[in-house]
């Protein structure tokens, strides 16, 4: 094996079929096929549509990544894949493909955690992660504060949303304002012409007795909807830019406040922000200001690497090979609720075996 492991990563946890190729911490290819337009008219990701799209896109996206990277499949040192968490049927397409490539090419397979991959992708932009690193992961599926000593083995959850993910709140507010799906980019754009102080929307879970590192965006979303409806009912025009800006301000205020506090409380001087919502311009700006003030170094990958992609999976796979972590076995399962603490899944599926022993062949 070369000093710098060459790893291909496959990501299919939601609606993006992502295939990335990484050598060490260098990104060689990041091919993505998205089914987002097929979901737009439903106002959210439809799992069966996503799974169908993954199946169709898989081999062409792999080939595109290999072509872009200019490498042969036989040159790879390993195949990494998102084993969870995510949509069960969607994950299964990626895991099955990864196993087939790993077996056919006789390469080690690494089933890795989607959330840890979101953190590890920053290595492609800013070099190896310091130990420890605080990570704020915000997307349509997750809002978590995670503390990592070693991204291949040790990710500890400090806090998470107790209801909606931050990205979900963006989607729902966009729907209330009639701005379409997905909501993140369009709310960000409209907010730029608005006044973030125009409306005082609530900051969830920021009271003295509230859990320090948990988030809640459900109340905020409802508050925005009530405010907008009241305006409409009164026959007044809804100031869309002001609503978008004030809502966005409330979300980013809570996220950055809690992330900086978590860093200070735990003596961590690096904050990494990842996930689709990390592409939000106001979040990046506010996080930078607050980190600068607190003497914390902020690491945020460029927007294209914050959303779901194969490069992040390849980045973590490459780190697994680099640190000589045990590969996964070929009976690796896709686990839609894989806990964040399970950074990778090297073990045999003992639960499955026990289940099989108990039920025999009687199905």
């Amino acid at each position: 094996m070369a000093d710098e492991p060459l790893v291909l990563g496959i990501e299919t946890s939601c609606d993006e079929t992502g295939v990335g190729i990484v050598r060490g911490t260098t990104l060689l290819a990041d091919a993505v096929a998205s089914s987002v337009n097929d979901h737009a008219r439903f106002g959210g990701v439809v799992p069966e549509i996503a799974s169908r799209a993954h199946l169709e896109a898989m081999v062409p996206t792999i080939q595109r990544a290999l072509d872009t990277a200019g490498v042969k499949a036989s040159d790879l040192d390993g195949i990494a894949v998102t084993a969870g968490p995510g949509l069960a049927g969607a994950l299964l397409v990626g895991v099955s493909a990864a196993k087939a490539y790993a077996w056919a090419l006789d390469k080690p397979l690494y089933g890795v955690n989607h959330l840890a991959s979101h953190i590890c992708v920053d290595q492609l932009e800013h070099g190896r992660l310091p130990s420890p690193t605080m990570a704020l992961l915000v997307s349509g599926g997750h809002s978590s504060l995670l503390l990592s000593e070693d991204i291949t083995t040790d990710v500890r959850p400090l806090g998470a949303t107790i209801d909606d993910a931050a990205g979900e709140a963006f989607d729902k507010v966009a729907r209330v304002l009639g701005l379409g799906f997905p909501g993140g980019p369009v709310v960000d754009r409209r907010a730029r012409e608005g006044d973030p102080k125009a409306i005082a929307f609530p900051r969830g879970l920021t009271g003295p007795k509230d859990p320090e590192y948990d988030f809640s965006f459900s109340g905020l979303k409802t508050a925005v909807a009530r405010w907008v409806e009241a305006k409409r009912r009164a026959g007044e025009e809804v100031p869309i830019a002001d609503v978008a800006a004030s809502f966005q301000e409330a979300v980013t205020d809570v996220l950055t406040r809690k992330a900086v506090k978590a860093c200070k409380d735990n003596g961590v001087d690096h904050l990494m922000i990842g996930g689709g919502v990390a592409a939000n311009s106001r979040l990046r700006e506010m996080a930078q200001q607050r980190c600068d003030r607190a003497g914390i170094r902020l690491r945020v990958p460029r927007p294209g690497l914050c959303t779901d992609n194969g490069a992040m999976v390849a980045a973590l796979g490459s780190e697994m090979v680099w640190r000589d972590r045990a590969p996964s076995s070929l009976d690796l399962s896709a686990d839609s609720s894989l806990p964040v603490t399970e950074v990778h899944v090297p073990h045999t599926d003992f639960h499955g075996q026990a289940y099989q022993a108990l039920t025999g062949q009687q199905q």
Partner: protein
Amino acid sequence: MLLLAFDTATPAVTAAVHDGTAVLAETDQVDARRHGELLIPAIDRVLREAGVDRHRLTDIAVGVGPGPYTGLRVGLVTAAALGHALGLPVHGVCTLDAIAHAARAEGLAGEAFTVATDARRKEVYWAAYDAEGRRTEGPSVDRPGELTPPARSVGAGALLYPDAFPGAHGPEHVSAGALAAFAAAELAAGRALLPNAPLYLRRPDAQVPAGYKAVLPA
């Protein structure tokens, strides 16, 4: 010819190696919830048993359904990836045709019959075959009660609904050995098989949300 065949469109996870004349090795496991875990280990096992190195394979045949989608996709994406990585052609076979082939080999030759598998939601995937084993109707998905009861029928879907399929008997699920034998015979006869694309037969379940729901009391 060294053909690797497998199918995940029924509760069975089944794989076989066929040399164009006979099945060299076959494995069958019935576990409707674990196609993803079981398939590659089954393929690995069957090649070892047959004493065939993966690089000596010449063709892949895969059951393209109809069948429950989640399991079905495991087989199809595996076939596509193996074909890509090993540089092999991938031939699709209607899973019901493979069951029909097995039924004739087990004694149904010379009679017309229907193959039905469980489509869940109180429906069956089915196809009808004539006395020569040619598919005359289907594959389709329907409620068993809506079909004209056939004189002879096979498959787990037929066994599940005895009122609609009187006198149904085995084979219950598809076997990769039969699928391989069917594919080898079709290829030898110069007939094209199907592309490696799923026979879903149903549109994806997707409800358009009924507009934006108000949160203020009406």
